[in-house]
């Protein structure tokens, strides 16, 4: 007891010995026991991020008393973390380091008056212009929007939609993501449905993915301490996450979750160290090294130090990794800060896209600038199903590369078009291409993939309307590009050996049609289309025949909804059938198989039997026979089903397509002595050896209207299965963006 009483005196004595300016900058409770920085980007110490006010306001002699009282404090937890760190060091070092000059905090200054006005009440802005929490993290616009909504929900914040928009724009720009960082999580922002995170780190998946996508994690950059705060926040709001996080024990202090609880541990940590560290500990600190994770302070000081690497709970291991892989300051971000500018976007862009069940999309977007980083758009689109659509919208650029927009149909557009399409796109590093998704639907499940190519003034080739062609005479290849001069001639184009361009028709400077002859022995595979000195894309695939068809998505996903007057939306699903080629290895169903083109098919559902009385197919919903559009059944218990089951289930989606496909020439007979490699079979394309003699001279059906096939065609029926899971609704939608009506 006596030794504990002497601590305040000792520290006070030390303070008196120090020059006043050092004392002011380096309060006794902070900074002294800072662990070595884990990464350069991470503010190396907790102290750096801690608003100096927290510690300065607590005189040393009070700290001992307040050890257990910190609970009631507002939970940004920044000051508390110090206690834990100190806790692990021996007491002797404490005084020694207390005199070390304070390193400047490294964060992003907050200058926006609206953000300071609304956030500054709790998140103090220090003399260095850094705001607690906010200055030490970067996120995409979706992430900031969620934060703002949480502040409204839990802290009764009030601001107008206009202010909210302004704050999100400021934060997503100044505290946003660099291009590469935004790309990492783009799939999440695009609200894609068919993707998987199976290949991601398993610890990360087990810690975060049971509740939300990892994309939400990838869309953030934080300092080391900020990552720890994220964990605390989760444990405070969702206590059951502690088991997910691998936190095995709970705090004896009773408040294992949340910032407030930190103080209880902080108090205990001071046992080992004396009063200077009374304010509490960051549980995460201690946790990274042992199972005691969140109770670094409680378990006492010296034995628990630990950097944020390895050990600890699963969440701590994950956070340690994230601290390194997604730090507050990355090279790319720093580079962007230097080169930051508003990239000019105004002008015409060609749209190349695809929408499941509606086919290929071709068109243009005219972008015009209306304000800083704000644009108006006019989309003119033609769909593979024949519909022509004109849409008008607006968009905003965040942090130079991330586009968020929305569009509505123009007056002349048919009413069947979605009333609102949201756009998420990312600008390429060379500023000439946008890639992304436009979507709608209760779960954002209906959408189209789009690529926008800027019209730069020079000639460019973007895509072909006919993605694959078989040997034929006079086949047409429609090219989309820009800057095609008026004097184009067939000799200007080149598609490789075996393909002769016999004619060219120029419709306008963005569209030309090539008439080509494809020799029977032309080597199969992707062909690059070039124009004069312009090296175009690999826009066409030469194939000899269709080997099978494939249903995409192979794993469909749908949710029941909209029963009665219910408010729960349905999640729809769409399918399409792709003709496939066996590819270079001549084996079916392997990774090198080529997707040739979408083909018409008849659709139906079939039972995916799991047990003998499986009857899902009767209840889950209906699929349109021609379009492959699946509409799920209503939600709610169904009294007609066993146990009042919902209309959920597992079914097959079956596509059946009748196609006239070229007859594949017989494989060349093997030469008597198989000499290591066949002399010139190199590419191994099956159509080399005398393809004409294959006696199946069935009825010839033209491959396309203009083309004359030079290989006999045969009618074949193809069948393929996909899987469709129809499951229960979600009752909580974490993402609805009320404020981004731009």
């Amino acid at each position: 007891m006596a030794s504990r009483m002497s601590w305040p005196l000792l520290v006070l004595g030390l303070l008196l010995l120090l020059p006043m300016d050092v004392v002011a900058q380096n309060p006794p409770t902070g900074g002294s026991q800072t662990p070595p920085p884990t990464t350069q980007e991470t503010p190396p110490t907790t102290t750096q991020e801690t608003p100096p006010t927290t510690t300065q306001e607590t005189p040393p002699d009070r700290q001992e008393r307040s050890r257990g009282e910190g609970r009631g404090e507002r939970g940004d937890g920044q000051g508390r973390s110090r206690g834990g760190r100190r806790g692990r060091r021996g007491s002797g070092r404490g005084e020694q380091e207390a005199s070390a000059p304070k390193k400047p905090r490294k964060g992003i200054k907050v200058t926006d008056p609206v953000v300071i006005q609304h956030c500054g009440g709790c998140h103090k802005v220090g003399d260095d212009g850094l705001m607690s929490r906010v200055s030490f993290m970067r996120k995409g616009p979706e992430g900031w929007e969620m934060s703002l909504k949480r502040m409204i929900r839990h802290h009764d914040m009030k601001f107008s939609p206009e202010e909210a928009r302004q704050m999100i724009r400021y934060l997503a720009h100044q505290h946003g993501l660099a291009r590469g960082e935004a790309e990492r999580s783009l799939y999440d922002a695009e609200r894609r449905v068919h993707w998987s995170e199976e290949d991601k780190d398993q610890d990360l998946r087990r810690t975060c993915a049971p509740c939300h996508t990892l994309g939400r994690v990838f869309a953030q950059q934080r300092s080391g301490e900020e990552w720890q705060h994220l964990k605390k926040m989760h444990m405070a709001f969702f206590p059951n996450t502690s088991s997910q996080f691998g936190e095995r024990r709970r705090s004896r202090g009773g408040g294992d979750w949340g910032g407030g609880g930190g103080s209880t541990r902080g108090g205990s940590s001071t046992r080992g160290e004396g009063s200077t560290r009374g304010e509490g500990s960051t549980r995460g600190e201690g946790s990274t090294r042992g199972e005691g994770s969140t109770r670094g302070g409680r378990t006492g000081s010296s034995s628990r130090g630990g950097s944020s690497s390895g050990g600890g709970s699963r969440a701590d291991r994950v956070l340690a990794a994230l601290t390194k892989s997604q730090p507050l300051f990355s090279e790319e971000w720093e580079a962007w800060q230097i080169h930051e500018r508003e990239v000019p976007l105004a002008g015409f862009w060609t749209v190349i896209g695809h929408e499941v069940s509606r086919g290929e999309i071709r068109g243009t977007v005219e972008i015009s600038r209306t304000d800083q980083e704000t644009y108006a758009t006019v989309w003119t689109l033609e769909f593979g199903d024949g519909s022509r659509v004109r849409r008008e919208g607006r968009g905003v650029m965040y942090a130079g590369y991330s586009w968020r927009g929305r569009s509505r149909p123009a007056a002349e557009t048919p009413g069947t078009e979605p009333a609102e399409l949201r756009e998420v796109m990312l600008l390429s590093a060379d500023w000439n291409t946008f890639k992304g998704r436009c979507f709608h639907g209760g779960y954002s499940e209906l959408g189209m993939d789009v690529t926008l190519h800027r019209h730069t003034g020079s000639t460019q080739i973007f895509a072909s309307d006919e993605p694959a062609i078989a040997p034929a005479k006079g086949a047409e290849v429609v090219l989309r590009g820009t800057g095609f001069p008026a004097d184009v001639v067939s000799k200007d184009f080149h598609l490789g050996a075996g393909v002769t361009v016999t004619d060219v028709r120029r419709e306008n400077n963005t569209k030309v049609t090539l008439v080509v002859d494809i020799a029977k022995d032309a080597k199969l595979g992707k062909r690059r289309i070039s124009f004069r000195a312009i090296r175009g894309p690999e826009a066409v695939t030469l194939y000899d025949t269709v080997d099978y068809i494939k249903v995409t998505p192979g794993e469909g996903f749908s949710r029941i909804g909209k029963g009665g007057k219910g408010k729960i939306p349905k999640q729809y699903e769409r399918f399409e059938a792709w003709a496939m080629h066996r590819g270079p290895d001549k084996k079916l169903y392997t990774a090198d198989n080529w997707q040739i083109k979408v083909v018409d098919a008849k659709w139906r559902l079939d039972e995916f039997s799991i047990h003998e009385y499986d009857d899902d197919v009767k209840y889950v919903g209906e699929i349109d026979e021609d379009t492959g559009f699946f509409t799920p059944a209503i939600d709610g218990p169904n009294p007609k089903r066993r146990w009042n089951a919902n209309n959920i289930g597992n079914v097959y989606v079956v596509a059946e397509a009748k196609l006239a496909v070229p007859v594949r020439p017989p494989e060349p007979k093997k030469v008597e002595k198989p000499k290591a490699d066949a002399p010139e079979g190199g590419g191994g394309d099956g159509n080399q050896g005398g393809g004409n003699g294959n006696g199946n001279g069935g009825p010839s059906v033209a491959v396309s209207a203009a083309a004359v096939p030079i290989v006999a065609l045969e009618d074949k029926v193809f069948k393929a299965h996909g899987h469709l899971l129809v499951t229960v609704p979600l009752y909580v939608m974490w993402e609805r963006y009320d404020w981004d009506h731009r």
Partner: protein
Amino acid sequence: MKHLFAVNQKARMIEGIVIQKAQQAHAMMAPDPPFGCTTMFSPGWEVDSSGGTHGLCTPIERDLYDCYHTCYWPAQVPDALTNSPNWAKSCGAPVNDWASIDLVFP
């Protein structure tokens, strides 16, 4: 098994069929679970441990409030603890009043 091989035509034919079926089955039985971006694909809520729906609560409404009160599926069902304390107000018994169940936008 790799030492066994088909020696006559019939055996080869059977082998071919088996291989073909196995490939088809592989495509179906090794699903690459889709994850929704606005959604999760969480075993236990959307799917059972085998990737199907037969192991889910039947009907889901029977178990809804348990998930709600204990915050068991915080991303799928509103939680009573912090985010949506009044979610269940409009619907006393979801098995009967399921159409009144609200959709929450936190």
